C-alpha cells in the first residue's frame, strides 16, 4: 500500500474513526515506514496543539445582548415579514384601497354633506336616513356638480356642496315597515297616536280579516297603512313604529331632489317673466291677429307655469312630509296540527332535513365566495411568510 493512501487515513486514525481492520493497516505501515511514522507523530502533535488551546471566555454581557435581540425579534415577527415583502405589502394595501374606494362609491355610510354646519339645514333635518337612504342619496346627489352655480354664489372657496347648503335641502324620504304585532287594533291605535303626535296623518289604510277557523281560532287581521309625517320627525316615527311589534322588514330610501326643485323654481320664474312680457305685449297689440297670436303664446306659457307649480307642490309635499308605509299583521298562534300520522311526520322531517342541508350548503358557498378575496390575501401573506422563514433557515 502506498504511503499517500495510508496518510489519507491519519486523520480518522487520530480521531478514532477507523474500523479495526483499517487501524491495524495504518499501525502496520507506520511500523515499517519511518517517514509516515514521523508524519503521523507530527500530525498528532498538531491535533494536540489545537485541542490544547484554552477556551476563550464569553464576553461580559453577551447573553443579555443576544436575548435583547431575540426579544426584539420575537415581538416583531410580522413587521419583519412585511419588511421583507414590501412589494407584497404594497399590493395588499393597494387592494384594500381599491376595495375601500369601491365600497365607498357604492354607498357605504358616508354622508356627502360632511362637515356642514347644522344651521345650514333649515328645517330639512338630517339628510342621512340610514344605510339604504344614504345609498340612494349619494347616487342621486352625484349629478349635483352639473348644477349651474348662481353668479352671486361663485365666491372663492365655495364648492357646489357649500352652495347647495345655502339652499334648503329637498329630500324625499320613504320608509317601508313590515310588522308582526300581537293585537292589530291596539297597534293601529298606537300608530295613529304616534303620527298625530308629530303632526302627521294617515293617507291611506286598508284592512283584511282572515276567515275564522273551524274551532274559532284564526280571524287574524292584517292591513296596510300609508302615513305622512313631517320629515324632521321621520326617523323618530320610524323608530317608534318599528318598536311596536316584531320587525320583519324595514326599508328606508331617500332621494335628494334639491337640484330638481330649484331648477323648477328657476324655470317657473322664467315662465312668469315671459308671461309678464306677453301681457305687456298684449296690451299694445293692435290687430286681432296679433292678439290671437299673443294669447296663444300666453296660454302655452301659463300651461307651463302650471306644470311647474304642480311639480313644485308635489316636491314640497313629499319633502316636507315623509312617507311611511306600514304593513301590519297579527302574529299567528302556533296552529295545532291535526296530529298527522307517523308516515306524514317522517316524510315532513325527511324533507325538512334535506332542505336544511341544501340551505346550509348554499350558505357555505355564499360564505366561501364572500371570503375568497380575504382568503387570497391571507394565502399570499402565508406563502410570503413561509418563504421568508425558509430563507432564514437556509
Amino acid at each position, binding site marked *: 500500500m502506498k504511503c499517500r493512501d495510508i496518510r489519507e487515513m491519519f486523520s480518522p486514525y487520530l480521531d478514532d474513526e477507523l474500523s479495526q481492520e483499517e487501524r491495524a493497516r495504518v499501525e502496520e505501515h507506520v511500523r515499517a515506514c519511518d517517514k509516515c511514522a514521523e508524519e503521523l507523530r507530527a500530525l498528532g502533535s*498538531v491535533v494536540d496543539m489545537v485541542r490544547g488551546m484554552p*477556551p*476563550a471566555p464569553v464576553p461580559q454581557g453577551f447573553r443579555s445582548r443576544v436575548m435583547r435581540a*431575540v426579544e426584539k425579534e420575537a415581538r416583531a415577527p410580522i413587521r419583519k415579514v412585511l419588511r421583507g415583502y414590501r412589494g407584497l405589502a404594497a399590493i395588499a394595501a393597494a387592494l384594500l384601497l381599491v376595495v375601500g374606494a369601491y365600497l365607498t362609491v357604492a354607498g357605504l355610510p358616508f354622508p356627502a354633506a360632511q362637515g356642514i354646519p347644522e344651521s345650514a339645514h333649515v328645517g330639512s333635518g338630517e339628510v342621512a336616513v340610514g344605510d339604504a337612504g344614504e345609498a340612494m342619496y349619494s347616487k342621486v346627489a352625484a349629478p349635483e356638480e352639473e348644477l349651474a352655480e348662481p353668479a352671486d354664489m361663485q365666491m372663492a372657496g365655495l364648492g357646489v356642496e357649500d352652495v347647495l347648503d345655502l339652499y334648503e335641502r329637498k329630500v324625499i324620504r320613504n320608509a317601508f315597515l313590515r310588522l308582526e304585532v300581537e293585537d292589530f287594533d291596539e297597534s293601529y291605535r298606537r300608530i295613529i297616536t304616534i303620527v298625530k303626535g308629530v303632526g302627521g296623518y294617515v293617507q291611506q289604510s286598508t284592512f283584511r280579516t282572515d276567515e275564522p277557523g273551524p274551532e274559532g281560532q284564526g280571524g287574524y287581521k292584517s292591513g296596510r297603512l300609508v302615513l305622512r309625517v313631517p320629515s324632521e320627525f321621520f326617523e323618530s316615527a320610524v323608530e317608534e313604529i318599528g318598536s311596536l311589534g316584531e320587525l320583519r322588514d324595514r326599508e328606508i330610501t331617500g332621494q335628494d331632489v334639491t337640484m330638481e326643485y330649484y331648477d323648477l323654481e328657476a324655470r317657473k320664474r322664467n315662465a312668469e317673466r315671459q308671461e309678464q312680457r306677453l301681457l305687456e305685449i298684449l296690451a299694445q297689440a293692435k290687430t286681432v291677429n296679433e292678439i290671437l297670436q299673443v294669447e296663444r303664446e300666453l296660454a302655452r306659457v301659463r300651461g307651463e307655469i302650471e306644470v311647474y307649480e304642480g311639480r313644485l307642490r308635489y316636491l314640497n309635499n313629499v319633502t316636507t312630509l315623509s312617507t311611511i308605509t306600514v304593513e301590519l299583521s297579527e302574529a299567528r298562534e302556533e296552529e295545532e296540527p291535526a296530529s298527522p300520522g307517523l308516515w306524514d311526520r317522517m316524510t315532513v322531517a325527511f324533507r325538512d332535513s334535506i332542505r336544511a342541508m341544501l340551505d346550509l350548503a348554499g350558505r357555505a358557498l355564499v360564505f366561501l365566495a364572500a371570503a375568497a378575496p380575504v382568503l387570497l390575501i391571507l394565502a399570499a401573506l402565508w406563502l410570503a411568510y413561509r418563504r421568508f422563514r425558509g430563507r432564514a433557515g437556509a
Partner: protein
Amino acid sequence: MVNLREISDEQLVMRAKRGDTDAFGELVARYEHRIFNLAYRMMGDPEDGADMAQEAFLRAFKALRGFRGDASFSTWLYRVASNVCLDELRRRGRRGEVSLDAPLTTEQGQLRREVPDTAAGPAEVVERREAEALVHRALGLLPDDHRLVVLLRDIEGLSYGELAEALGCPVGTVKSRLNRARAKLRELLLSAEPEASRVVKGNERGGAR
C-alpha cells in the same frame, strides 16, 4: 413551573418554537460558550466572534420553526453558526477587508500582522499563550472551510457523522477535508514556529505594521 435547567434541548426547542424566549435563553446559556469559541476562532477576533455568535443565535431563533429535529439541536446550531461566519468572511473577502491574521504582502515579501501581547504573567502562562497564539495564527491562515472543519472537530469535538451534518456534506468529504486541513496546519505551524516565538518573546518590533 418547570425548571428550564432540568429539561432537554428538544423540550427547550419546542417551547422556544412556541415563542417562549426564556426557553431559548436557556439554550443560549447552554451553547454560548461553544458557539462563541467557534465564532471567535473562525473570525480570529473576539469582538467579531461575539458579533457573529450573536448573529448565529438570532438567526437560529428566527429559523427555529424550520428546525425539524432531524439532527440534534447542537449540530444544527453549529451549522447555523458556521454559515453565519462563512457568509461574513465571504462578504469581507469581496470587500477586501484585512483580518489581523491574514498575511500581508509587501515588497519585502510576506509579513504577518502581529498584535503585541503586553499582558505579563508567570512563565507558564506566557508559554501557554505563546502556543495558543501560534495555533490561533496558523488557523487564521487556513482557508475558511478548512479552518471550520478543524475547529468543529478539535475545539468543539464533533464526531465525523455530526461534522457531515453540520457542514452539509458526506462523511467522505469531511474526512478528506479534515486530513488536508491538518496537513496544511502542520506545515504552517512548523514554518511559523521560530518567527512566532520570537515575536511573542521578544516583542522588540513592537507590532509590525
